């Protein structure tokens, strides 16, 4: 493994963007970083709130119209190489809000995430489990490691 890949694997900075989900995924992700039980830092995953520092962007929620532009802005602010992980049913396929098929469809939802920014890994679940979040971030890693 070259120094480049090795250093990328030893320090992964993760940024979270909430795009209007139900909070369940958001809290589970924060939980897997802040809770000593899961403690993402032991897997060299660090939480950051600054797009300039981030490598992996974890997106939750179905991307409502209001947050479409901010999400793009955040994505563009991250320097290459970067990977986007869509966490939760809403981020992967629009979730219950897009697919419930009532009389009136929701007009607020611009998502899912892959229609707005390219997605590298998808984490299923409603809400995602902390273990799955960690494995999802790890699944996106090869993309980072092998980028030039």
């Amino acid at each position, binding site marked *: 493994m070259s120094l480049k890949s090795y250093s990328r694997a030893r320090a992964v900075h993760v940024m*979270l*963007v*909430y*795009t*209007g*989900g*139900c*909070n*369940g*995924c*958001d*809290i*589970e992700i*924060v*939980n897997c970083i*802040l*809770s*000593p*039980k899961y403690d993402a830092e032991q897997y060299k995953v660090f939480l950051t*709130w600054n797009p300039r520092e981030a490598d992996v962007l974890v997106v939750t*929620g*179905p991307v*409502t119209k*209001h*947050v479409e532009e*901010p999400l793009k802005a*955040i994505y563009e602010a991250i320097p290459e190489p970067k990977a986007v992980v869509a966490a939760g049913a809403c981020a992967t396929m629009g*979730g*219950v*809000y897009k697919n*419930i098929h*009532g*009389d*009136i*469809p*929701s*007009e*607020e*939802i611009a998502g899912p995430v892959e229609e707005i920014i390219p997605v590298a890994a998808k984490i299923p679940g*409603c*809400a995602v*489990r902390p273990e799955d979040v960690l494995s999802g971030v790890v699944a996106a890693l090869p993309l980072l490691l092998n980028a030039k």
Partner: protein
Amino acid sequence: MDNNNKVTTQVIETEVPMGTIHSAALEPYRLRLFVEDEIVRDAELTIGVNHRGIERIMEGLPVEKANSLTEKICGICSNSHIWNSCLTAEKGLEIDIPPRAEYIRIIMGELERLHSHLLYLAHGSEVLGHETFSMRLFYIRETVMELLRMIGGNRVQYGASIIGGVRPRCELDEMRIQKLTEGMDYLEEKIGEFADRFVRDPMVISRISGIGAITKADARRLATTGPTLRATGIEVDLRRDMEQYEPFEFDVITQDTGDIKANLLMRVLEIPESIKIIRQAIKDLPEGKITNRSWEMQDTDIIRSYIEVPRGKLYHSYKIEDGRVRNSIVRTPSITNINTMEFACIGTHITDAQLAVVQCDPCFTCTDRAVQIVDHPLKKIKTV
């Protein structure tokens, strides 16, 4: 306690916007702070990111499906939503709920209050800048999450209630009761230790006491609800009036000052009360079936139901036509608390402003469904 909470009439010069993605916020919201030398003179909270149009997509759904959709309004108080939505249907269709199911619902409701309050405290500590407290609280909270997972099958959206009772999955057998008892013992011990440590920390206390104070009169004027209202000294708890809670003994906790310290302590002190309710529910758990399936669908008028959830008063209403939901309205506690949040920011330092928002336990995913008509920022509020 005077905290300079007055909107000054002078021209406000500088605005510091924060969000929608911010390290202090667990949810996307935009906070515009109008500052004068780092002291907040006015604040505006802009929400709308979480607006998914839940009431609109609920229109025309079968009642069972609509109930499970209400759960997806919020990931923190998901059980409260599905519980109240089921209660609404049960009220309209006149369904009797087996007493055992009632008890299991209350156990779930109180477990949810525990996890919500612990999350509040952990988030509050994180915004305070105290990572260690935050992590310890998340560790304590893990017990509650495991119990919820054991009963409901999922850590967040457990969907315990269905029309006429609770899901068969949520039946409490002896092993589960044993685990619940152990969990409650552990939680009581740990939260006691934490509270001791918390109130003795001089640095934390100097950060939180007297900041973002809300007086009784202001709380009434701003239509504050839930623990935030109780922290100002007004003893209002809908659980006192709910018939489901009649068999249980618990105290309604109040604080006097309404500042961040009072709010944080409020949640710490409510945790033992919830533990007390769960213990009573486990002890007196009635025998019998947990679901009443002998009911028929019929058309109803608009049905309304209020319950007390971790953040305050929750209101659901809809009418049923051909087994489908019409004219649904959900009113969550955070929508009335938004004004309190903005008000609590005024007069604080910028660093405290986010804390003042957090002290009202915001849950904007709940909130973002209604159109808000505001005549004057602090006077009158009407939701449509």
